[in-house]
Structures are given as C-alpha cells and as structure tokens.
C-alpha cells in the first residue's frame, strides 16, 4: 500500500449533496458523502447500479458541481473557482480514462495524446516528445501514427491512459475502464494502471463492477443509494 508523504489528503470532499431535477421530480444521487483520498492511493468506488458512483466520480473529477458541500483538491477550494479556472485546474491535475475510450477519431494516437498538452499551451515539439514518452510507457510507441479506428479496444484504452498520464496529473479518474474490453485486455489494462501507480505515484480512482480490478485495489469504497456504506482498506 502506498501512502502519501504528507498527512494532508490530495482530495477531500465534505458533506456532498447532489440533487438532480427531472421535470418536477427531484432525485438525490448523493446524500451526505464525505471522503478523503490520499496521494498515491489505488482505490475503487463500487456498488449497485444507481448508487451514485458516476455522480461521485464526476464531482471528484471536477466536471460536476455539488448542490451542497465542498470539494478540496490539492489544498484548493474548488467551490469558489470560476468555470475557466476549474477547467485549467482540471486539465493540469486530473486525467480521465473513459469506458468508451473517447479518443478523437481524426487524430492519430500520438496526436490524441498531445491534445491535453496543446490545450494547456505547450509547444508542439515539447508536446510531441512528452506524448511519445507516454506512449512508450504504455507500450504503444509502434502504433503512434495510427488512428483509433485502426487500433484494438485494448490498444485504444492504452492510448487513453497515455493521454491521461501525459500531463503528469495528481489524480487519474477511470470510469469503468475495463467494461468494454475482453478479459485478456482487461487484465493488461489493470496491470498497466497498477504499474503507473507504483512507478509514477499517480493516484487512481475507479468505478467498476469488475471483480478482478477490485482484487487489485488498495481500498474499496462501497456506495449504496447515494451514501458510503463501506470504506475498506484491503492492502
């Protein structure tokens, strides 16, 4: 188990409440959720369908704002930030890996990985170098110039991971990262992410149904009906 060097958590969410309005009806996806995540952790959020996992991920990933409660990320109160500031913050500190890979189809693997750096304003040359390195790290340097439609599911997810890693984020959020992969690729991806967590110290937070992934994590947070019912450190 890797624990953070500082006692201050990387991410603290306190008393998060998230309500959605569907027409006249109110749906409370998260009731009163509080959670601390420390740097270097490799943890999973799991639970039945509709438990609020995705909502929690979105709030952690700063792509959704809670109806009530606070989110502190790397010492910064994100509640007070404006949209552009949150966006910049997110781009630098958080990486995303999606269930559906979400690569830009008209860009090559390398160009996809360069994208978050270019958005931040990094020069093309520097971006290219870092992207190449990231692809090497995930073992896809031979497929750099290929477009996503020429890559297998597993390869695409590896590109996505490279894209997430290339900005050297503090946290990577992966929403069901193995859901669309066969067992062989799933295992491969899990091992890759574990390796990244160990070698680079990047914090990983997943949502998953996949028991194999659950076996690999250090900590499991169980959500049911918008509340944390279990928070188990396994290793």
């Amino acid at each position, binding site marked *: 188990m890797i624990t953070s060097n500082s006692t201050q958590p990387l991410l603290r969410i306190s008393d998060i409440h998230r309500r959605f309005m569907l027409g006249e009806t109110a749906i409370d996806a998260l009731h009163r959720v509080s959670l601390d995540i420390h740097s270097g952790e490799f943890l999973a959020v799991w639970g039945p369908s509709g438990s609020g996992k995705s909502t929690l991920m979105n709030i952690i990933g700063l792509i959704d704002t809670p109806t009530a409660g606070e989110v502190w990320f790397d010492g910064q109160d994100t509640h007070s930030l404006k949209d552009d500031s949150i966006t910049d913050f997110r781009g630098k500190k958080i990486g995303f890996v999606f269930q559906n890979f979400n690569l830009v189809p008209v860009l090559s693997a390398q160009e996809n990985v360069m994208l978050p750096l270019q958005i931040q304003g990094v020069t093309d040359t520097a971006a290219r170098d870092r992207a190449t390195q990231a692809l090497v790290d995930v073992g896809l340097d031979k497929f750099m110039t290929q477009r996503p439609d020429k890559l297998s599911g597993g390869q695409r997810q590896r590109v996505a991971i490279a894209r997430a890693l290339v*900005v050297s984020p503090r946290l990577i959020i992966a929403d069901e990262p193995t859901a669309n992969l066969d067992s062989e690729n799933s295992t491969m991806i899990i091992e890759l992410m574990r390796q990244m967590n160990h070698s680079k110290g990047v914090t990983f937070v997943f949502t998953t149904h996949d028991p194999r992934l659950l076996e690999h994590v250090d900590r499991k947070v169980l959500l049911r009906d918008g509340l944390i019912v279990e928070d188990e450190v396994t290793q």
Partner: protein
Amino acid sequence: MNTLKLAFRGLSRNRRRSLMTLLTIALGFAAISLFAGYTHNIYSGISRGAIHGEMLGHLTLRKPGMTKEGKLYPERYLLSNDEVEKLIELLRNEPHVKLLAPRLAFSGLISNGRVSTIFLAEGIEPSALKTLQDGMFTQAEIERGAFINMKKKLDPDHPEVVELSTGLADLLHINNQGQAAMLVNTMSGQANALDVTMSKSFDTGNAGTNDKFALVSLGFAQNLYDAAGHADRLTVLLDEVTQTEPMRKLIHAKLQAAGLEMEINSWNELSSFYTQVHGMFNMIFGFIFLIVLTVVVMSVANSMGMTVIERTREIGTLRSIGLRRAGVVRIFTMESLMLTLNGCGMGLLLTVMVRYGINVANISYTPPNSVSPTPLLVDLDVGHIVFTFVLMGIVATLAAYLPARRAANTKIIDALGHI
C-alpha cells in the same frame, strides 16, 4: 493549440456533408462573382457610352439655371463668344484636360421637299467630335467589330454636310449624299433655313431618339441659329475617368476665383441612362448577394449544427481534459471559417473557368432601349470578389458561432452521456 489542424481534420469527419456545404458556398460565390463581373463590364460599357458615345465628356460647364430653364428661354443662358473664349483660355492648360469643346444644341423641322418632321441637333466642331469619341471602345470590343459604324464624323471643310440618325433618314427617305432642308426659329424668333447633305446615317443607340437626331458642325449650328460664336455649354474631356471628381473641384475653384459662375455637371449626373442602369443593376446585385448570403448562412448553420450535435461526446471529452468553453467555440468557428474560405476558393476557380467560357462563346444580345446588339462579356471585378470573400467569411463564422456556443455551454456530464 493547433486549432487549424483540428479544424481541417474536423471537416474530413463527414466528407459528404462537408463537400455539399463546400459546393453550396462555391456555387454561391461563383454566382455573385460572375454577376459582379458582368455588371462591371456593363458599367464600363455604359460609362464609356455616356462619356464618348453620348458625347457628354467628363464634365459639362453651363450657365447657372441652364438645366432648369434653358429649354424654355435658351437665349438667356447661351454663352457669348467672349464667355466661351474666356473659359477656354482659363482651362486650356489645366492638368488632365484633354479637350474643351463648345457645343450648341437646337431643334427645328427638317424637310425633304415633300414632308417635314422634327429634328434635334447637336452642333460640335469636327475635330472635337473625333477627339471625344476616342476611347469609346475597349480593345476586346474593337476586335469583335460590332460597333464600327457607331463612330461619327463631320467634315471641317463642308459644314453643310451632316449626319442623321437612321430613323430620321428612313422617315424622310434620304439616302447617303441625299439633300434636305433644316428650318429653325432663331433666338429672336426669326425663321431661318439651310440646305443640308447627309453624308451617312448612324444609330443613336436609343430607340427614342433614333428617329429625330442630327449631328452638325458647330459653325453650321451657329449660322442656322443666328448665334455666331455662341455655345450653350462647354464639354470638358479628361484623360482619366477617375479624375472626374477631383477636376470638378479644381475647375469650380478656378472659375470662382476668376469671377465666373458656372454650373458644373459630371457625366454620370447627366446621363440618365447611366444612372438608371447603374441603379437598377446595383439593386439586382444587392438582391442576388442577399439571397446567396442567406443560402450560405443557412447551409453553414445547418452543417455546423449537425456537426456539433454529432460531436457532443467529443466536446465533453475535450472539456474534461482542460479545454475552456471559448476553446470549444474556437474549434467550430475555425472549422466553419476554413470550410467557407475553401468554398470561396473553389468558387473563385469556378468563376474564372465559367468566365472564360462565357467570354469565348461570343454571345450577343440587344439590351433594352437599344438598336444594336452588345457582346456579352464578364470582367473580373476584384473589389467585389474580395468583399464577397470577407463577408462570407464573417457570415459563416457567425453562423457557426451559435451552435458552437450552445455546445460549449452544455454541461460536461450531459455531453459525455450523449449518445
């Protein structure tokens, strides 16, 4: 961020849609450019027609009040011999002045010995007539040879030899070298008449005057009208049509300084034909321009709207990885701009090709109020082409702006969840 590359790649996502929109823009652009080129050719032709054909020159100097009352009380507004000489002396050496021609117009009855009919005559010095007509045709038109018989000539040694319009010659059954008599009332009301010989006839180019017009020497006119040395106006011909306005100001100032009050009119003010045709074509052009622009805007808006919807999830992804709202807008507006500029470029190519085709096809037509056919030619109106490029670019960018903004303002979680 390399928006340009992203924009270009974006266009290739749905090749067919991009191509359709591109073609729409190209055709619209070509339509506007070709029509602008056509009207440019028309304007050039009718301006030369007004200046050299109607013999208005570039500027006309008259006594104040002549345009209003001159027809009723001509004797009050004629320039005397001294006045004409003074004007010529003053303006002769001004830059850009190519010719100063005193003119005398009058009307009366012309008879062939059996019947008589009304005529309207222009008196002008034969040498001035020649100089005034230089520059009437472009090289292309001369090569087409359609107008050679429209240039007029007067013989300085034979003032009684005149040219009559074809309709008038037909009416009185006068052939070349045929005789007729012109009968007028002089300024003081006396009857005066002189024999004339018609050298040849000409088309006035205007169905309304072609049965009444006569071209005579200034001396003959002055003699017939009993107005030796007089003129009703002074025609000023310049070396460049672009000098019309600057020279008008200069001449006005110079005349005022010399204590001469004169009414100065430019050729486009005096040629009602030019003004009307110009106005009409301007209106038609504006109309066509608006229609094409509307079609282009709708096409681009539709295309961009669909693109944005299709790429909602991608937009969500980009926003997640750090792209600001403004960045999203920039991507789509840039795509639209690229599409439009490429469309305009293709349109320009199309314009050049079609223009070439039209110009070599040797098409002719007879415009309204005319008696002879005109060649159909299309110029390349660079000014309008550039204007169209710019305006289309702006308009297309705006057309993409709204859907792009809508996309940028969509909540990320909604965008990501979009199928």
